[in-house]
């Protein structure tokens, strides 16, 4: 199993994807440390993971 990667939607870095990822799995981009969600498989597509109550943050 060659390690696979997917682009980080925020900083474009190559994010390592663990073997047999699952939909909605949470990953973290090591370079910009944004939380990412696996939105699609084959190929793996990453998107920013929603905050729990994102609009409560600010």
């Amino acid at each position, binding site marked *: 199993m060659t390690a696979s990667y997917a682009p980080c939607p925020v900083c474009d870095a190559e994010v390592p994807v663990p073997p047999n990822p699952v939909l909605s799995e*949470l990953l973290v981009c090591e370079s910009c440390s944004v939380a990412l969600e696996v939105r699609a498989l084959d190929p793996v597509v990453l998107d920013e*993971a929603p905050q*729990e*109550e*994102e*609009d409560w*943050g600010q």
Partner: protein
Amino acid sequence: VVIVKVGGGKGLNLEGLAEDVARLDEGVLIVHGANAWRDELAERLGVRLEVLTSASGYASVLSDEPLMELMLMAYAGLRNKRLVEALLRRGVRAVGLTGLDGAVIRGRRNAAIRAREGDRIVLKRDLSGKPREVNAALLHLLLAAGYTPVLTVPIADENGFAVNSENDEVVALLQETFRARCVVHLIEAEGFLADRSDPASAIASLSRDELARLEADAPGRFRRKLRAILRTLEAGPVWVAIADGRAPHPLEGALSGKGTVIQ
């Protein structure tokens, strides 16, 4: 119209509130919580409530199926109908509604919750949401016919499912729709406490800016309440009071300036 938010603690004086409402000659919209009853019921039933602290420091209980059942029993069943009963016994024809009833409070389901599955973390959509729309027509229909709406969670999500939400945000949404002359938050303290550990430190009044500063570094749950009160203030000129819901006449006290007034 006066909007009254009744906290969910055991110390709230429903009988006194009912008497005050009976004596008030303007329309009243009541929103109430019941977290003390929910937690007690959870304990009695051996159901474990999972409290999550979101990335941005807001605390919330994971709204999974068991929690929804507890909420329906404690909020919509027990507490809602006991408040309706207390009001009816004093001649106030209250009508108890959750957000589901007549879709009176509709909202959007929240984004995901982080859940650990084996060595992974997977995002889980739980059953919580933000209130977005009020069915003002139904509330006006009831108020005009002399009824007092008594509202509580759950609310309805975009597909009509029951979802948990924050009652204080329901109050803010109601204020945006009804522009009540005043919004009273009845809590188990004499008002907004400068020092949360000192019951005698209730502040007489607060400006919006002072409230905004306090909200920035308030702890989890309480921060959400202050944030919702701020939203109430943004909806237009209103007189907001945070007053002692344990007093013999909590609403009359609040309307006569007792507790913390925010303008």
